[in-house]
């Protein structure tokens, strides 16, 4: 029994990446802003979305389209989906969790808790099936349709009734009979669970049948170790069935857990959409491209910037089909970083099966997103800044696969331009040869210039109008030999606060 709402053929793994190994680029694309908007204050939503993001790079186009369909259903009838979710989380609420808990300390407890958990889960599943059945016609996606079919097929009334009877029968109140032989060192071996004789179960039968020769050991009431030994011996028999019972319970519970996490992803997306609606940011479903080196967007906006500013933001139109290298130069505060972030976010959201904040968006699938941003001075580092940049690059190379997407922001500028340009050029060349797509924001003219004649490169430039006010929109244009950062430099560096900060 599988939910299959996230993948057409397998379960979603909702385990959130640990904070340390979470998306290494999360900080650079401000992913936390998006996660918080999707979470709507629910930590579980946050972590589930984070897990979905971390796994986005393994999704194929089919999975992305599959999720887009399911998400469209969810956006159409959010209240119903939230109802499903409320039923699915019952086993995980604090006040009810006792009846859904599985202890695996020993076989006896496994059997007992397995039976109890199964009984509780069956109740939840029955209600879920009935709710789904009543509303099935309002869902069109393959994901929901097969989910409903799974419930109908596996949880019909006959099955539920039979299962409940089985569970009631499963108790050993009357006495547990084991057989064994004497093994090495006097250890009982070959333990088998036996069906007790009738005379073992009833006092009446005991009276009328001739008793075989036997010895009885009576446990002393204060003999705790002895009681443990009793339990251990009985467990050797119970363990033969406990795994089966336990696994059955675990499976049913796992089904509900997966359902919870998969619905949490979609409800997170619903939350996000509701937030963007409030701001007035329109969304669209991207069109993932099977061919390599595709990147095309119309009015692509930075989702997180919109969420942070709580207002609509300026977008960019880019056609970088066939251009695995995009070099972005130009004025400081001209929207370069924002654009870079919007590219990373849109790629991630596309591969999660989500919508994006654009009028149109379509890009090839990538094997991963890596960001290499200029870092603020890190005092704990003993190595130099340039060294640290190279260390981070090496770290990216360690985990990167072909067809990855790498976003560089002012990288390798911590040394003089000639050296930095050469290193950057070598790195970019090596990446391109590995089918890696590179977006590189840089002030290093020597670096940008070295790709001027390269057909693989697209050059974007941050605009700046006559008055010096920025439009935050990028145009397709080759790099200029000079940066426009002087004014910003003066303002930041030659004010008293900046001087203080420096000292």
């Amino acid at each position, binding site marked *: 029994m599988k939910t299959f709402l996230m993948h057409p053929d397998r379960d979603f793994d909702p385990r959130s990446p640990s904070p340390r190994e979470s998306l290494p680029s999360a900080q650079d694309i401000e992913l936390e802003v998006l996660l918080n908007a999707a979470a709507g204050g629910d930590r579980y939503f946050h972590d589930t979305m984070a897990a979905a993001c971390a796994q986005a790079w393994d999704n194929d186009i089919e999975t992305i389209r599959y999720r887009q369909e399911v998400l469209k259903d969810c956006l159409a009838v959010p209240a119903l989906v939230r109802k499903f979710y409320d039923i699915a989380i019952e086993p995980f609420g604090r006040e009810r969790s006792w009846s859904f808990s599985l202890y695996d300390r020993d076989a006896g407890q496994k059997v007992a808790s397995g039976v109890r958990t199964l009984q509780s889960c069956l109740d939840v599943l029955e209600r879920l099936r009935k709710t789904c059945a009543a509303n099935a016609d309002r869902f069109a996606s393959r994901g929901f349709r097969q989910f409903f079919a799974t419930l109908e097929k596996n949880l019909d009334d006959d*099955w539920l009734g039979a*299962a409940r009877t089985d569970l009631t029968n499963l108790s050993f109140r009357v006495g547990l*009979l*084991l*057989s064994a*032989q*004497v*093994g*090495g*060192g*006097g*250890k*009982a071996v070959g*333990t*088998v669970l*036996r*069906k*007790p*004789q009738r005379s073992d179960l009833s006092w009446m039968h005991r009276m009328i049948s001739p008793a075989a*020769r*036997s*010895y*009885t*050991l009576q*446990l002393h*009431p204060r003999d705790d*170790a*002895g009681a443990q030994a*009793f339990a*251990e*011996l*009985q467990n*050797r*028999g119970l*363990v*033969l*069935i406990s*795994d*089966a019972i336990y696994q*059955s319970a675990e*499976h*049913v519970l796992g089904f509900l857990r997966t359902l919870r996490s998969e619905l949490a992803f979609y409800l997170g997306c619903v939350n996000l959409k509701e937030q963007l609606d409030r701001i007035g940011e329109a969304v669209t479903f991207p069109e993932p491209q099977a061919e390599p080196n595709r990147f095309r967007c119309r009015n692509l906006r930075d989702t997180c910037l919109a969420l942070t500013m709580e207002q609509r933001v300026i977008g960019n139109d880019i056609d970088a089909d066939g251009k695995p290298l995009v070099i972005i130069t130009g004025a400081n505060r001209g929207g370069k970083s924002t654009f870079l972030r919007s590219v990373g976010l849109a790629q991630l959201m596309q591969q999660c099966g989500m919508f994006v904040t654009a009028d149109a968006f379509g890009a090839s699938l990538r094997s991963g997103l890596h960001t290499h941003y200029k870092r603020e001075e890190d005092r704990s580092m003993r190595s130099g800044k*340039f*060294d640290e940049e*190279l*260390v981070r*690059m090496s770290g990216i*190379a360690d985990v*990167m*696969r*072909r067809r*990855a997407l790498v976003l560089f922001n002012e990288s390798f500028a911590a040394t003089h331009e000639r050296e930095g340009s050469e*290193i950057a050029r*070598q*790195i970019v*060349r*090596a*990446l391109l040869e*590995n089918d*890696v797509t590179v977006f590189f924001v840089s002030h290093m003219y020597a670096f940008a210039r070295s790709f001027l004649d390269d057909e693989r490169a697209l050059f974007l430039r941050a605009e700046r109008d006559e008055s010096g006010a920025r439009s935050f929109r990028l145009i397709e244009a080759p790099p200029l030999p000079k940066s426009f950062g002087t004014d910003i430099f003066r303002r930041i560096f030659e004010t008293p606060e900046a001087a203080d900060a420096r000292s």
Partner: protein
Amino acid sequence: MSEAQTFIPGNLVRLADRRPHPEAGGSGAGAFATILFPPGLEALRDERGEEPDCFVDLNLDQIVGAAVARRDEDVLRPIFHSPCRSEEVVRYRQAVFADLERPEIFGIFPQFGEAMRGVHANLRYAGEISTGSHRNTVILRAAGLYCEAIAAFLRNLAALELESEGLKGLHAYLADYARSPSFLELARETAAQREALSRVSFGMLFSGDRVKVRKYASEPDYTTIILDRFARFRESGIAPPGPAKPKDDFSLNHIEEAILEFVSRLFPEAFGSLEDYVSRQGNFIDEVVARFGREIGFYIAYLDFIRPLRRAGLPFCRPIVSASSKATAVAESFDLALATRILAENGTVVGNDFQLSGPERLLVVSGPNQGGKTTFARMFGQLHFLAGLGCPVPGKAARLFLPDRIFTHFEREEDIANLRGKLEDELVRLHRSCRAMTADSVVVLNEIFNSTSLDDQIFLSTQVLERILAIDAIGVCVTFLDPLSTISEKTVSMVSTVDPEEPARRTFRIVRKPADGLAYALSLAEKHGVTYAKLRSRVRP
């Protein structure tokens, strides 16, 4: 290597003393007494419980600690603490190691060692048991393990082409032993007793705080009934598990013991016969076999310890040893303790060569910090210690002197508050060492006197080195004082280096050349593997 081993510089007399190799299964078998010393030299055994003084400085404590971990430490540590100056003993052990380095030979030992440990553990345990039925079953288990171990071991040995005097001697001894009437009788009786017990089938009916013990009465298996009933819940069929292995399958708790006692009353014939058996066969272990079982652990432990290093391609060799010639030559050796750690971190281990020939006695190592100088010094000490144990040593080839003692002086943790006291302590220790030192000693000095002024350092170091050189001990001295490398014709200058082709990577290579104090520069991108050429090949598909 085997030809080279018969070369004993300046000590040919001893060759004549060597006993002829006993033929496997031949009459020489009785001569075998221990796998650590050749017949006749058993008296050289002089085992120490406490660690030699040089252990911590040379990180030998780490090596030995790791090698003996989870083994019979009480037996193995003293062996590892006690190197031997006898070339004959060292070669006897080297030959055993050489045999054991062949996988097909090595493969039979862990099993035997494990079995013998089991035998001893059972007998120890039986001694603590008061209930007769239980004690007897434990002794029976021990005897069963013992018979199986001997038979299996002998069968395995017979199938091998053994080369070493030690293992051939053992084989001959065991072959005789296994044919002896007493052993054959033990094996037969033990098998019969086990068979009889395995046919004893009983039932335990638990209800509440009672358990009723009776003979098994053909009640049906309940597991299949339950499994069928719940099969529908499971995604895929799981194989019904076997009965749980008891948490403790070695000892019985008092409940199990009481149940067993009831079972023995339900089946008096089987348990009466067991009682007779134990009174006749209780003391079954052969002394020589028992000793071998313990001592072979020395070889196994060491080979197990170096196996991961070998598998990683690091060379080990059996050194040519001499108790008289100080001509020393080592190729591509390394610090064993460090190599183990580096390997765990997937790093690369760098090998180094060194030689002492003619009048040369002391390697003076200088050069950039972090260049592997201390490691080199440790390696020097470790090599001499391990060679004396008879162990294979790190390196492609080695010719080593067997020292009477190894003296180490390593820079201790800085204690700013007490520099003066520290210098005093150091001098006291050095003085004591110099007095105890002989021409047969090995000295390892690492950055001594670092805590004092430069002039003091040169003066003190020179004084100490001259004394050591006068004694004619061999050794290594790590220092950043270039002049020390030229104070005598007995000193050899070695320098930690940087690779001119790849200046970023620390080479950890120490080469024989005049001290030059050259520093190294780092080419950062190269170091981090992010140049065009490097990065191109790093991206995974």
